[in-house]
């Protein structure tokens, strides 16, 4: 029966990889979405509505929706769809919606004087972004982004409902074989606890040691 526990350990790699990859893609998309949302032109309200929709609908609905559309598109090209990629797409969408709000809030909490001073010193936009805006936005948004990593780590368990072979699925198969569901689900819970503990320690370390906005605080 030791082999079921090692199966769950091997499946934890899938969980970690899908959450980390969706955080990376989601942060890239989210910064783009934040730029598009802060623009006050006539078309940009569509991105506001999109982000509000993705934030308020249940994650399970978004995952099912994106999975079905992805499968439909891929079957037209006769490729087999992968639950990993459709889970990655849907989780990145969710991360982008939440992280765009975090980036907008962080941008709005930079003191306005800094941008005026940069303007009066005739720094071009790339230099202001690189030296003034980006470090302060990182400084303000990092705790919330680490919170978001915790949330996405837990949301990746829902992707097991589509068929991804992650920890939940491995524990489900193990519990169907031997009729001891509590052992394997509790073992999966222990692995989730360890991963969350690591992220919480990273959060505490950042609180003490953040050098991102030191010069500008």
């Amino acid at each position, binding site marked *: 029966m030791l082999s079921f526990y090692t199966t769950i350990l091997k499946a934890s790699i899938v969980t970690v990889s899908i959450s980390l990859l969706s955080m990376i893609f989601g942060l890239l998309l989210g910064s783009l979405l934040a730029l598009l949302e802060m623009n006050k032109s006539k078309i940009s309200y569509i991105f506001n509505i999109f982000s509000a*929709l993705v934030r*308020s609908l249940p994650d*399970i609905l978004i995952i099912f929706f994106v999975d079905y559309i992805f499968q439909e598109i891929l079957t037209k090209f006769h490729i087999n769809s992968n639950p990993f990629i459709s889970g990655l797409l849907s989780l990145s969408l969710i991360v982008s919606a939440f992280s765009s709000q975090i980036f907008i809030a962080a941008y709005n909490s930079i003191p306005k004087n800094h941008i005026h001073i940069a303007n009066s010193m005739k720094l071009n936009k790339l230099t202001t972004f690189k030296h003034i805006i980006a470090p302060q936005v990182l400084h303000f948004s990092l705790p919330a982004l680490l919170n978001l990593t915790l949330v996405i780590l837990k949301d990746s368990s829902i992707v097991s409902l589509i068929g991804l072979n992650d920890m939940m699925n491995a524990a489900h198969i193990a519990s169907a074989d031997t009729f001891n569901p*509590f052992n394997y689900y509790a073992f999966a819970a222990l692995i*989730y606890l360890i991963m*969350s503990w690591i992220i919480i320690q990273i959060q505490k370390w950042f609180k003490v040691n953040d050098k991102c906005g030191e010069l500008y605080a």
Partner: protein
Amino acid sequence: MLSIFLTNFPQFLQGILTTLELVFTSAILGLLSAICLVTLKQIHSTIINKIIETYLFIIRSTPFLLQLYIIYYGSMQFHFINHSFLADIFKSAYLCALIALTLNTSAYTTIFLSHTLNSINKKEILVAKSLGFSQWQINKCIIWPQVLIKILPIYSNELIMLMKCAAIASSITILDVMGVTQQIIGLTYQTIPCLMIAGIIYLILNMLFNLPLKYIYNKHHLKLT
């Protein structure tokens, strides 16, 4: 899309009622248990604090689906649950989902209730003590009215997260909105219209939860400053 909704309207209505029942009962039970846990935390005893901190840490770090599966599938492994009166509780999917949702919301609500309690002006409590208020009167007239109003924006966020977690309960064969949608997708094979109907229902439920709380907050929060 409207035709699918109208032909299957009784099932959708049943699903909406199940979701509303689940969310309301677990929200009320969660809020009450969170208030109990926060008052326990105010006693400042190390053992009780450690127990509550471990409970909060476990519920915050594990996914809701895992908690649900442990309560629904995992409880049947134990002999003392299987052969006692508890078996009826843990066999029914609705009660298991209710227990799991209540545990989840009470954990998150205790966290921000304790933060809000710490952010009350200590001077008001000092002045009340010097005027001769008893602890019960301080709680009733000064602390809890402020805290309950300050918490409303965060609590409406928490209600939305509760609703999202209640949608996951459909994986345990509960016929809420997601469960009914999956049933009707199996009947009619029209996935995208059914999922869009479910999305619209969830948006309407969101507004149903948010607007009353927003109205109450706007009416009362100016009295606090």
